[in-house]
C-alpha cells in the first residue's frame, strides 16, 4: 500500500516535471525538441530520482516518443537486383508517341495537339530579329518607341515584287493591277459595265 502511494506520487511528480521540460525545450505544442532526446533526459533535475529508478520505463517511452520523427529510415540495404527492378521496371520506360502527324508546311513531325516545332522555330527567330530592331530604344534615358506605322521590308523585296508583276502580266490576265477575264461572246444588255472594277 505504501509502495502504491509512493508510485503514484512519483508518477505525478514526473508528469509535471515532464510538462515543464517539454514546454521549455520544445518549439511549441507538438513540436519535436530542439535538443536531442538524450540531452533532455540529462536536463531532468535530480529530484526526480537518482540512478536507475525502478519506475524508469516511462522515461524510455518518452524518449522514444521524442525520437519518433527519426523513424522513417531504411532498416536494410536495398539489394542490387531490387534496385534495378524498381529503376528499370515497365512503368519507368519511355512510351512511344501514338499521336504524330506531319506538318503540311515543312514536313516535320509533331504531336497532333501541338504546332510544328520547326515552323515555330523559324517564326521565333524572325520575330526576335524584328524585335531587336523595334526595341532598340533605352527607356531609362528617356527614349521612346516611334509612334508611327511600321513597314517591315526585306532585302530583294522590290526585285521579287517586280518579278511577280512581270509574271502575271506575261500570263495576260492582269493589266495595271486588274485581272482581266476575256469572254468569247457579246455583252448581254442586262450585264452592265461598272465604273470601278470589283475587288
Amino acid at each position, binding site marked *: 500500500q505504501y509502495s502504491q502511494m509512493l508510485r503514484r506520487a512519483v508518477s505525478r511528480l514526473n508528469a509535471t516535471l515532464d510538462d515543464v521540460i517539454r514546454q521549455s525545450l520544445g518549439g511549441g505544442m507538438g513540436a519535436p525538441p530542439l535538443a536531442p532526446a538524450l540531452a533532455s533526459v540529462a536536463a531532468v533535475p535530480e529530484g526526480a530520482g537518482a540512478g536507475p529508478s525502478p519506475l524508469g520505463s516511462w522515461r524510455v517511452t518518452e524518449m522514444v516518443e521524442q525520437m519518433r520523427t527519426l523513424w522513417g529510415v531504411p532498416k536494410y540495404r536495398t539489394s542490387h537486383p531490387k534496385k534495378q527492378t524498381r*529503376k*528499370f521496371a515497365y512503368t*519507368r*520506360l*519511355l512510351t*512511344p*508517341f*501514338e499521336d*504524330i502527324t506531319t506538318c503540311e508546311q515543312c514536313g516535320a*513531325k*509533331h*504531336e497532333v495537339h501541338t504546332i510544328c516545332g520547326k515552323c515555330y522555330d523559324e517564326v521565333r527567330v524572325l520575330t526576335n530579329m524584328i524585335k531587336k530592331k523595334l526595341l532598340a530604344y533605352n527607356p531609362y534615358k528617356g527614349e521612346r518607341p516611334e509612334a508611327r506605322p511600321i513597314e517591315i521590308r526585306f532585302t530583294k523585296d522590290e526585285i521579287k515584287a517586280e518579278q511577280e508583276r512581270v509574271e502575271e502580266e506575261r500570263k495576260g490576265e492582269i493589266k495595271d493591277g486588274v485581272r482581266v477575264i476575256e469572254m468569247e461572246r457579246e455583252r448581254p444588255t442586262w450585264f452592265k459595265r461598272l465604273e470601278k472594277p470589283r475587288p
Partner: protein
Amino acid sequence: MLARVVSPSTTRSLLTATRRVSTVTMPSNEEEMMPRRPMGGREKEEMERAEEWRRRACLRKPVLQRDLQVAPKVYYAPEWDLAKKANDDEGWANPLKGYGMTPEKWEHYNKVVWPPGYIVPETGLPKNREVFHCRQSIHYSPRRAWYACQLVWRMNVDEALVQLDLQQIKASGILAEVLREAKKRASDEFHIEFPSRMHVAEAFPVQSNIIKGARRHAHEDWNEIRYRYINLYVRLEEGEGPGNKSREKPKDGWEKMEEYYKYLRARQIKNSIG
C-alpha cells in the same frame, strides 16, 4: 458461332497486336457459314512475318548441351587475335577478363561474309543482312541511355527516328544520330537497296570509361563525381521486327482460347474405374 473480330494493323506502332491467322481447323457447318476469302497481299506479308519470327523465336528456347548441334562454319571471317587485349593495351590478355562488347569486336561482325543467298537451316529462311555500328565516348550515363535504347529496340528504323526526335532526353537525340549514321552506312558501305526497310535489332549502351572529378559540399566536405562515358552499339537488320519486346510472342485471345479448350478437354475423373 464465334464472332471473330479482326483488329486492323497500325503502321504507327509495332507494339499493337497484329492480325492472327488460326491454325485450328473449324467444323464443316461453320466453314459454310463463314467462307474464307482469299488473303490479300498485306495479310500474306503479315502471316509470313509472323511465321518467320515464330521460327526464329524457337531458336531461343534452351536446349540441352548434348542435344545441341553446332552448325558448320559456312561463313568467312578474318582472324581474331586472341592474344591481344581488346583496347590494344599492354599485357597478357586474360580470357576470363576480356568479356563485354568493345567497338573492335562489334566492327568485326561487319567483316563476316556469308555465302550469297544463304538459307539458315534451322529456320529454313534466307539470312537477313545486318549492319553493325557503334559510336564511342559519349558523355552520358549508361543507365539513362538504356531507356532510349529500349524505346527503339525492335522498331523499324524510320519509326525509331521519328520517335527519338520527339523524346525530350539527351540520349534520344544522340541515338537518332547514330541510327542515321548506321542507315547511311547500310546504303553506302553495304549496298543495301532499301535501308528504310530495316529494323533496329539491337541497341545498347556500354560504359567505356569514367573520368573522376571533385565537388565541394558544405563544411569543406569534398566528394567524388563520376563523369561516365559510353559506347552506343546499334545493329540494323533487314526486314520487319517481331512486333513485341519479349522473348516469346505474347498470347492473344484466340491462343488463350485454344489453351483453355485444351485444358477443358484434358480433364479427367480421378480415381475412377476405367
